[in-house]
Every structure is written in C-alpha cells, then in structure tokens.
C-alpha cells in the first residue's frame, strides 16, 4: 500500500487528479511493486498520447468531427412505438436545438430519481401520479348548466378523487382559493356552483364553466405526463414537461441525480457547471442514438465553449460568434456590414490573432507550424 501512496505522490503533477483517483480505485489488491510501477508508466504514456499538442487546431477539428457525422443524420425522429407513449425529439432537430442554445425546446423531459425506500418501487405509481399537474377538469365526470337556476352542476369523478386521496371538501377549498365570485355546495357526489353576482347571464356562466376547468388543483406545474420506469434494479419516474425547482422541493426525490433535458432550466437552478454537463450528456445521447461515433472530448469542448461566458450561449451569431474579439472574424460569419459599421463607430482594433483573419490577409495562420515564433528579437 505504501508503494501506491508513493507512486501517487510521484505522479501527482503528471496526471490529473481524476485519473489518479480512478487508477487508485481500480488497482488490484495484491500486486508486485514492479508491476505497479509498470501500470503507472503505461497510464502516463496513454495520457500523454491523448493530450493535444500546442498549436493543434482543436476547435476546428471539433467542428469537423461533429459536423461531418451530422450530415449523415437524417431528419427522421425515432418514435418509441408503444413503449412509453412519449414522442421525444431526437436526431438532427434535437442536435440543432442544443447547439443553437434555444431557450424553448420541443420536448422537455425529466428523469426523477427517488430516495431509498421509494426507488425500490414503493408507492411508485402513487408518487408518479401526485407529480402530474392535475387540473380541475380531470375530476369532472359530467358538467351541466341549469338555465333556470343559473347554476352549474358538476358530477365529480369519485375514482379520480380516490386515486389522489382527495376529499371533495379539500377540492372545494382549492377551488375557492383560485376562483372568487362564486359559491360551492356539495350534494352527494354533485357539486353545485352558484355565481355570487345576480346579474350573470348564461353566456358568462358558460365562459365560467370553461374557466373553472383549467384551475390548477394538484401536482407540479409543467409536468404533463408521468411514467414510472424500471432501469436496472431501480425505479425512477420519467416525465414529459419539466420543473426542476419544484420537484427538488419534494422529500422523496434524490436531488443529486434528478435531471432535466432543459439546459437553461438546469443553469438557473443548479448553475453553469451543471448546464455544461447536461449539454455534454444530451449531445452525446443524440449522437449515440444515431449510431454515430464522436469522441466525447469534441463534445466537451463544444459544451465548454457554450458555457464559457457564465451563461449558456448558442453556436450562432447571437451566441459565441458575438463574443469573438476580431471584427474580421465576426464579419466573415453572417451580417458583415453590421459588424463593420459597429466596429468603425467604436474604433475597434483587430489583433489578427486567429485563423480566419489571417486567411483573409494571406498571412500565416497561428496554428500548427504557424504558431511558434522567435524568442530573440531581430533588429
């Protein structure tokens, strides 16, 4: 064991901490010091070969490595036929959505992991059902308007009430809170709603009926569908629609693993590092689903670039291109006149420090063989 400690110390500045940690975990119990040393040497060699050399155009290689398989992607989105009733955006549309840094994504989804007794399947259906945003119209089995009395008769769905463990009285309380100007009365399983103001006509009553149907009663806002799934040994809940903040408030939820596919929401609730992780995760998932193979480091570089400014910015002229320092580089990518005019007004300076400007001027680009310079000044 002492040998391991010694070697770990020795390689402390040669290898990144995460690799050292992995290495320490995966070492066998019994091992000769000579072999141990060999393992460390081998890991170091592997690490060195994986490191990008100075002057390597990592950004460009990354762009080509993601862009080329992207052209092979077809627009068709896969359907989970029959399995889960959910139709998730994948493929090229989803890829574009992530890279553009769109605020509103087409399919919001959450994976809610649960704390101990519940992740073994305890009350899983009940928990799932309680998450779902439920509106009043789901409790209605029949609704009619009494024209003579100018009242509304609502027959409540007793099965639904039971499923959510709801008393009719509790329902009335919630309704009363959000809908003013009327009174509720319970007659058997019927709910009689009476408008408090006398001069209401039938038209208004009809509108009111439609309005009351949309009253939020129960669950978490924004969660439109829930689906308990068993993944491996564990039960979790997949939802359509996302509300990370409110889901985290629930005690049964494992907040360390619960995730949403909404990058902006993740950024707001958990911060930029979490957003970066989600970008990597989501991009990698899309590419994997298409049966393509892109090195994860390319994707990590994209995610890093998108989150570099402390906020999530897309790969387009409103996002990362806007933050380029070079006028010529910005002008060479969409809306050139605007960039030139703005820069002229501000008296901007272009230091010609990246590739595209130097190609424009027919100068040596500062990557690869063009990067190194002379240390000694030539007079």
């Amino acid at each position: 064991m002492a040998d391991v400690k010694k070697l770990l110390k020795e390689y402390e500045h040669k290898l990144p901490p995460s690799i050292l940690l992995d290495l320490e975990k995966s070492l066998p119990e019994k091992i000769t010091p000579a072999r141990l040393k060999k393992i460390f040497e081998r890991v170091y060699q592997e690490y060195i070969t994986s490191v990008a050399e100075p002057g390597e155009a990592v950004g460009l290689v990354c762009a080509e490595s993601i862009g080329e398989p992207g052209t092979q992607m077809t627009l068709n989105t896969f359907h989970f036929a029959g399995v889960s009733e959910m139709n998730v955006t994948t493929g090229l549309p989803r890829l574009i959505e992530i890279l553009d840094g769109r605020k509103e994504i087409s399919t919001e989804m959450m994976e809610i992991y649960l704390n101990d007794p519940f992740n073994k399947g305890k009350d899983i259906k009940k928990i799932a059902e309680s998450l779902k945003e439920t509106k009043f119209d789901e409790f209605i089995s029949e609704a009619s308007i009494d024209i003579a009395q100018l009242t509304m008769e609502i027959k409540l769905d007793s099965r639904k009430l039971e499923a959510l463990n709801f008393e009719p009285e509790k329902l009335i309380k919630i309704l009363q809170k959000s809908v003013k100007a009327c009174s509720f009365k319970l007659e058997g399983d019927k709910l009689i709603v009476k408008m408090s103001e006398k001069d209401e006509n039938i038209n208004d009553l009809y509108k009111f009926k439609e309005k009351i149907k949309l009253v939020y009663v129960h669950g978490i806002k924004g969660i439109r569908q829930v689906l308990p799934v068993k993944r491996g040994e564990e039960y979790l809940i997949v939802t359509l629609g996302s509300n990370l903040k409110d889901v985290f408030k629930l005690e049964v939820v494992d907040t360390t693993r619960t995730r949403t596919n909404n990058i902006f929401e993740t950024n707001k609730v958990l911060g930029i590092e979490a957003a970066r992780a989600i970008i990597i995760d989501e991009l990698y998932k899309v590419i994997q689903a298409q049966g393509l193979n892109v090195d994860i480091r390319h994707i990590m570089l994209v995610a890093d670039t998108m989150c570099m400014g402390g906020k999530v910015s897309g790969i387009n002229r409103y996002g990362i291109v806007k933050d380029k320092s070079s006028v010529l580089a910005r002008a060479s990518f969409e809306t050139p006149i605007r960039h030139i005019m703005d820069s002229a007004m501000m008296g901007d300076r272009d230091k010609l420090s990246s590739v595209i400007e130097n190609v424009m001027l027919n100068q040596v680009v500062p990557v690869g063989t063009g990067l190194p310079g002379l240390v000694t000044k030539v007079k």
Partner: protein
Amino acid sequence: MTDVFLNNKYTGKVSDPEDFVDKVISSRRMGKLSESINIFHHKKTDQIFVEISGGRPIRPLIVVKDGKPLLSERHIAQLQKGGLTWSDLVKQGVIEYLDAAEEENTLVAFSEEELTKEHTHMEITPLDIFGICTSLVPFGSHNHGVRLNQGSKNQKQSIGFYATNFLVRMDMDVNILHYPQVPLIKSIMHDISEYEKHPSGQNVVVAVMSYEGYNMEDAIIINKGSIERGLGRSSYYRPVIAEELRYSGGLIDEISIPDKDVKGYKSEEDYKFLEGDGIISPEAKVEEGHVVIGKVSPPRFLSSLDEYNLTSNVKRESSMTLAHGEHGVVDFVLLTENNEGNKLVQVRLRNMCVPEIGDKFTSRHGQKGVIGLVVPERDMPFSASGVKPDIIFSPHGIPSRMTVSHLMELISGKTAAMAGRFIDATTFSSETEGDIRKELSSLGFRENGTEILYNGHTGKQFKVNIFIGNMYYLKLKHMVANKMHSRARGPIQLLTRQPTEGRAKEGGLRLGEMEKDTFVAHGTSILLKERFDADKTIVPVCESCGVIAIYDARKNRSFCPTCGENVSISNVEISYAFKLLLDELKSLMVYPRMKLKSKY
C-alpha cells in the same frame, strides 16, 4: 338532393345522383358530350363534381360492360386493316378518357383474364404506366422502379441518329453515332416509335468479369479492336456564328480578312485558313486560336471630336476565333441573312470522337460506366470458338442494384444473335426467361449463359465459367475530351486578381472553405498560405496613418497621400482581395488603418 359542382363551382342540385351520373357518362360515350368531360360522384358527402377544365391529366381505358370489354376481336381486325382509327373507337364509346376523380368510381382490370361482373374498365396495356422512354427498357418488370427511371434517363443522353437530315442542319451541340444498330432485344415501343429509323446504340458482346481491376467502381473495359472497327465512334457538330451588326451612325461590321492596321490584329498565321471573303474554307483543320470567320467592327466610342483624329479612327478586330482547347474540322459553311437583312455566316465544325478512357457508356438498365481501360484485342479473354467480348462489365454492379433485366438481356441477346431473330422484351409481356433459356440450350450453349473463357495474356483457361452474351450498349454524350481540364498558371479576374472560374475560361480549381480546414487541421499553416498566394501583392503602407501609400516608380520611392514623403513607409505582403476590402471599406466611409509591427 345531391349538390352538383361544375369545375368546382356550385351549379345546382339533382334528385337522383346515380341516374344523373349514368346519363352524363352515356351521353359522353355516345358523343353528345365532349370526350374530355369527367364526372365524379363523391358518395361520402353525396356531391357530384363535373370537370371540363383544362390541365387535368386524363388517360384512356377500354370500357367494360357485364364483364366483357367493348373492344371486340372485330374491332381489332378492323384496326389492323386500317378501316378503323383510334378516334373512331373514342367516338363509339369503346375507349374513354378518365381523370383522377372519375377513376375513383371505377374498377379497372389489369388484364382480360381478371375481368369480373363488377369491373367497369380495362387497361389497354399495362405498359401505359410508363412513358415512351421507360417503355424502351427491356424486361422492365424484373427490376426495381428506380432502375427503370435511371435506365430511361440514360437513354435520353445517348448518342444516336437523331435526324436523317443532320447534314444540312445547323444544330448547336449535337452528336451522331457512326454505325448505329437496331437492338436485338426489343420492346413493343421500339416498333411504335419506329426506333429502327433513329437507333442510338450498338449490339456488343459483353462479358461479366473483372479484368486487372480496371473495371472497378462501374468502369468498363473496352476492346481496342472493336473500337478500331468502329464501335462507339461518333461525330460532334458545333456551329460558329458571325453576323454583320449595324451601329448608330450608319456604321456596320464587315466580314473579311482584317487589315494589318486593325486594332487587335492577331498574327498572320491565325488567319491562314480564311478565303478572300473572310470565311474559312471547308475541310480546313482548325486549332485553338485560329480564326474561323474574319470580322472587323467600327471603333467602339466614336465622338464627333474623334472624326478628325486619325489614331482613334482605326477599326476593331472582332473575328470569331476558336477558344482555348477547341479544335475541329470545318464541315459546312452557310451564308444567309438575319432578320434585319444583314449578312449572317454560320460555319459548322466537326470533331470525330473515338472512344477513349473516360468516355461514358451505358446499357439500358441504368448500368452506366466510363471506360477504364482500352485493351488490345490480343489481350482480351476469348472463348473456345474464338469470340472475344467488346466490353467487360464488372459483376459488382449487379447485386446491390438488383438489375435482373440486365442479366436477362444478356442471355436473350445471345439467343437472339444465334437464332437470328429479334426477341420481344416488352415490360409485363415479354417472352419468358424459361423459353429463352431453352432456346439458348437448343442452340448448343449452356442455358445459364456462361462459357469457358481463356485468359488473353496467358491463354490459360479461367477457373470459373464466365457469363457472356450480347447486349445493346449506348454511348452517352458526356465525353472526356469536352470535360478534361487542368491549370498551373492562367488568366485572373480583373477585380480581385484571383484566378478565373470554369473550364471555358481556363480557370483554377477552387480550394474552398472545407479544403482550407484540412490544412488548418493538419497545422500546415505555411503550406496553406502558399496555396492562397494566387492573389498576393506587395503594397507600401504608411506607418504613421496606416493607409496604403503610393509607390512612385519614376523617382523610385513611396509617399503617403496624406502624410507626404517624410514618413516611414514599409512594404507589406497581403492578398489583393484584402486590399480590395480596405478600398471598399473606405467607400463605406470607414477608415481602416494598418498598424505595422515586425513579426520577428
């Protein structure tokens, strides 16, 4: 009550829709109504649509009554005699035209065998789902639909015998095949379209095998002996046109040999083929730069002042000259006049195109390919009876494309050639594969079309039997001679000083954005710079104001237009395109300044 719409506009109501529709149809069949009127009863919504508007596709079908087609044996006999025509049948109501809507109310039988009491119509022939060109594909019913499309597209590009009077026609860009043949494997459309009068291919012996790897990726190997015997030989015709244009002030072009004092006079050598009238003589062999029609034009900008000025009164040379890479033989000269009554000269040039590596050929099944190798006849594989293939086709073209018809034509072609008859290969009604195989076997060949072949180099027998037979091959109009292009140095554009674009202008091959990326990705920056050096210029830059300075060659020094002479000016190497960008920025009232710094 059923609503009735005429050309999609509401026109009225009828109480008995069935009766109304029947009446309209029977009146049409009796010739009381136009044959292009169609009526459609939409039963779900109970509406009747009557259509007589233009632009609807309509198609003819045989009318069927009580399970029997109205077209009888008697009709057919009369048709064959010529006593009856198509329009008679339409008038008699034997054949009627239906549009897409009326078809919904009908039940159409594919053939006479499947007719029942319920059927209302019958197809004239199943072949009419195809156009003329697609019907020309033999054994089309054995193929994937895509291959039929491609087969017909290829046939449209084939070189043939497009017009019998081609010798006196002045067509732009046409080809004539020298020895066209009628296909042995025909479809009925070959007879209908009188294909024997304008054939466009040749019957060749095809062996399906590989040969030294020169027929990979759809290439074909061609027998040099066959080429020398005239296989795939064609002529390419192209006109050169000149006319005497009239200009303001009574000035006019003149077609003649230009005088030596004319502005822009070429060398005497270039005019050597011109006769006294300034037009080239027939059968002259012209090369690039040679003048075909000599012409002089009046000076371009003639102002009143210039009339007394001797130097500017010189006429302009405007002859029709052969451009870069062009050559040919003068075939035909035509002298006539244009709409305004001015002299118009047309000269037709001819090029003989002998098949060479890179010329495109195709069978009729979308199996196109370019020549990959021309093999001397002695090196071609041969059979025991001494037959050598004209073309060697790669077997790798078959499995993925599944053009079964290609293989069937090969066997049928062999049968047809040996039996001395044409074989009917009309899609859906061709002779059957079994019969053809039987016939081939009775002719003394292996019924699967394979033969023992011997290696042309060594004379040794091949270990496998080779699939060999006769096929109809077409030469396509894409020939390398008209496409081949390369450039090391050459003309540049005036504005950007970058190389011109396109083969006609002897242009460069663009190193585009993505190609640039490959250099960057490899880190080969200096090589990248060199590749983009085509428009590099050295400009003097004023170091105090950052603007491009002026170099005075007479005094051999530079000065700045704003700062004068007493400033330091350095020469900088940039692309001309960037200098142009700076100039354009200045025109936008943006002042771009260059701050210079030593790189080292």
